[in-house]
Every structure is written in structure tokens, then in C-alpha cells.
């Protein structure tokens, strides 16, 4: 069958039209992909904003925690020392030389202890500085105050590998440590607290365990009551890590935060 020139020319015309439709769809595809790229970028910006807000919140919480410690210490420690100093001074009888010398020595001792306490508080007030010394040092410093209460037997172990993430991650990790310790103090009725830091080339792990009353993790999460626990999970995820909470009633709780560097 011979094809006429009319048919061939029609075919050429038709093919040209198809050749015109193809770029049209290509342009539409590029434009729609570009729109998706825009959406993705907006989402990324929003995530970054959320992260920045959360980081700011975390920094404020660290400061708040510091101020609380300062307030407790002023009331329970320095306040008591100064009261004792006042009582001792007012009880001095200048005619009783023997007792006066003893009492003055006691006042001197109390004053020295007060000065020491005020110096320690002053160091504590520089919350940012604490974290800048490194996570391990910040935790050690925080634990110093916890040990003073004599309510807990605190053990802190680590493999001496410094944290290699960025400062935002370090701040959030430190705040997570504070939140977990606060939970133990407020709810666990524990007597023993173990803290362990393990770092290697790829990961950084923080394990905090206690011998407290424990709780049913599923139940707490289902009731949506554990805002603190939700916060621990959320913040761990925010710094690209994950938190595992293992707890059973009576057997204490272990919280493990694992933070891969990449």
C-alpha cells in the first residue's frame, strides 16, 4: 500500500503538534516540582524555627532550674548559716572570756562557710558557663548540689569521651538530664541514682537509672499525663536522637538517651 504525500504531510503536521505538547507537559512538571521544592523549603524553615524556639525554651528552663537551686540554697543553707551566726553572736557574754573565744571561733567558721557557699552559688548563677565547660563538667557540677542533700546515693560514671555534637544539642541534652533528675526527685521516691555517659565515634549515650517506685510506661503515655516524659521523647528526637524509657512498678526506672552524631 502506497502512502500518499498528503498523508505523510498530515503525519508531519500531527507529529509537530505532539512535539509541541511534550515541552508543555515538561514545563508543567518542572513548575509543579518547583512548587513542591518551595513547600519542602518552607517546612524546613518551620522546623528550624521550632527547633530554635525549643532551644530558647530549654535555655530558659536551665536558667530557671539554676535560680530554683539558688533559692533553695539561700533558704536552706546560707540562710541557716547566717541565722546560726546571729544566734551565736547574740549569745556572746563579754565577761565570760573562755566561752567568748570559742563562740568567736565558731562565728568565724560559720562566716567562712557562708562565704564558701556564696562563692559556689555565684558559680552556679552562670548557667551558660556551666554548659560551656562541657556536658560532663556541667553534670558533675549539678550533682554536687544533689549530693549535699544526702537524700540520694549518687553515682556518676563515664568513659571520658567528650561530647562531639553542636552546642545546641549539648544544651538540650543537659536539660534532658535536669528533667530526668527532677522527675526522680519529685516522683520516684528513690534512694540511688546512677548516671552513665558513654561516648564513641558515632554515638553519645546518657543512661540515668534509679531504684524508685517505677511506673507503667504504657499507662502513663496512654493517659497523656506524662507531659515530662513526652517532652523527653520530643526533645531527644529534635536533636536527632532517641529516648528509651524502661520502667516497671517497684523496680525503678532507666532512661537511655542515644544520640548518633550523623
Amino acid at each position, binding site marked *: 500500500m502506497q502512502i500518499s504525500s498528503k498523508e505523510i*504531510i498530515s503525519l*508531519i503536521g500531527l*507529529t509537530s503538534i505532539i512535539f509541541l505538547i511534550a515541552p508543555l507537559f*515538561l514545563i508543567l512538571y*518542572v513548575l509543579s516540582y*518547583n512548587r513542591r*521544592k518551595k513547600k519542602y523549603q518552607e517546612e524546613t524553615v518551620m522546623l528550624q524555627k521550632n527547633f530554635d524556639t525549643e532551644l530558647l525554651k530549654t535555655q530558659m528552663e536551665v536558667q530557671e532550674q539554676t535560680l530554683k537551686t539558688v533559692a533553695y540554697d539561700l533558704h536552706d543553707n546560707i540562710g541557716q548559716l547566717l541565722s546560726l551566726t546571729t544566734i551565736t553572736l547574740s549569745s556572746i557574754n563579754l565577761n565570760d572570756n573562755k566561752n567568748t573565744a570559742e563562740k568567736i571561733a565558731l562565728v568565724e567558721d560559720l562566716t567562712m562557710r557562708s562565704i564558701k557557699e556564696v562563692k559556689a552559688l555565684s558559680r552556679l548563677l552562670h548557667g551558660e558557663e556551666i554548659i560551656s565547660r562541657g556536658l560532663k563538667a556541667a553534670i558533675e557540677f549539678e550533682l554536687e548540689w544533689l549530693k549535699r542533700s544526702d537524700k540520694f546515693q549518687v553515682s556518676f560514671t563515664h568513659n571520658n569521651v567528650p561530647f562531639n555534637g553542636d552546642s545546641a544539642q549539648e544544651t538540650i541534652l543537659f536539660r534532658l538530664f535536669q528533667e530526668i533528675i527532677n522527675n526522680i526527685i519529685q516522683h520516684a521516691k528513690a534512694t540511688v541514682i546512677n548516671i552513665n555517659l558513654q561516648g564513641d565515634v558515632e554515638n553519645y549515650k546518657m543512661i540515668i537509672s534509679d531504684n524508685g517506685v517505677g511506673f507503667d510506661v504504657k499507662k502513663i503515655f496512654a493517659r497523656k499525663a506524662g507531659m515530662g516524659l513526652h517532652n523527653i521523647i520530643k526533645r531527644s528526637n529534635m536533636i536527632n536522637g532517641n529516648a528509651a524509657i524502661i520502667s516497671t512498678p517497684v523496680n525503678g526506672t532507666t532512661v537511655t538517651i542515644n544520640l548518633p552524631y550523623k
Partner: protein
Amino acid sequence: MIFFSVSTVSEFICFLVALLCLYKDKDVAWKLFIPFLLLTCVVEIIGIYVREFVRIPNYAIYNFYILFECVFTSYFFFYLYKSYLYKLKWLLVWFALFVAMYIAELVYNKFGNFVSVTASVMSVVFVLASLYFYYVKLKDEHFEPLVYSAPFWWVSGTLFFYFGSTVCNNFSKYLAMYEIIAYKYSVRYLIFNLLNIIMYIFWSYAFICRYRQRKSFPL
């Protein structure tokens, strides 16, 4: 009236838009559109004049024009790719290849016909260059609102024209011989009119985008 065809009118309107939007542009590549489009209009007018009044084939004029078309379009593509660290040597290699092909075809035709093979190869290269531009834009992580992007619309117009004309270019000799016999009108003429309208609308929009960009962010 014979000088007023779809092609000449669309080219002239596009030239006017380029003149209004680009004459204050500080970028030489964009500013060059004004002389290039002026040259296109002049070549079209001369082409019609030679065909209709002198009554001799006008391929020599288009053989001359294709040199400018190739150099300018290739240079403009290179200008668009420059920010993506595209190397100058590829532009020079392409120019060398084009010149070799052009001279070979002219000699082969004994200077007696339009360099259609060279024009077809040039079209394919420009289609590839346009597609590469899209590829670069898709790969680019930085978001750019393409709806208002002058380079994007210029490339789109160019792609439409050179991709759409591929079939006509490949069958140009066949069409020249048979289309008038088969139909009362030229299929090639209709398709090229359509392609010219699309390309010059896209280019005009690109110039307007460029003007708006210049007004919003003066360089």
C-alpha cells in the same frame, strides 16, 4: 502589506518589549536581545523583499542569519549556566563543531541551498541545552520562583521553538517539494507561525519578568 506576516509582527512586538524592558538592563547578555531581535526583524523583511520583489531564493540571507542565531543563543545559554560553573571550553567546542558543519554543508551545497542539516543539528543542541537547564534547576536545592523567572521562560520559549521545529526541519526538503502540491497552503508555514508566536510570547514574558526583577532588586 506583504511585509506584515504573523512572524514579522510577533518578532517586532517582541523586539519592542525587549527595547522597553531591557534597554536599561545592566547585564550585557540580556541587553544583546535588542540588537539580536532587531537583526531578526530586518532579516525577515529583507527575506520577504528578496522573495517577493527581487524574485530570487532568499536562503543566502538565512544562511547568514543562522550564524548570529547560533552564536547569540549559545552565548545566552552559556550565560545562564555560568553560575553553575559551566566551562567555557564546551561553548568553544560547540562553536568549532558548528562552524565546521556549516562550512562543510555550504561547500556540499555549492552555496546553493539553505544549511538545513546544520540548522537541524543546532536545533537538537538547543533542545538539549534547554533540557539541561531544567535538569540543573530541578537539581538546585535553592528555591527560585520559576513563574517569575526570566531565564526559565526564555528557555521554555526556546525549547518550544526548537523542539517543535525538529520534525519540520528533518522533513524540510520533502515538505518543500510536496506540500504545495498536496495542500493549498504550506504546513511548514503554519507550524513555524505557531512556533514563532509561542516563542515570542514566552520571550516577551521573560523580558517583562527581567524588567520586574530589575525594578524590585536594582543591581
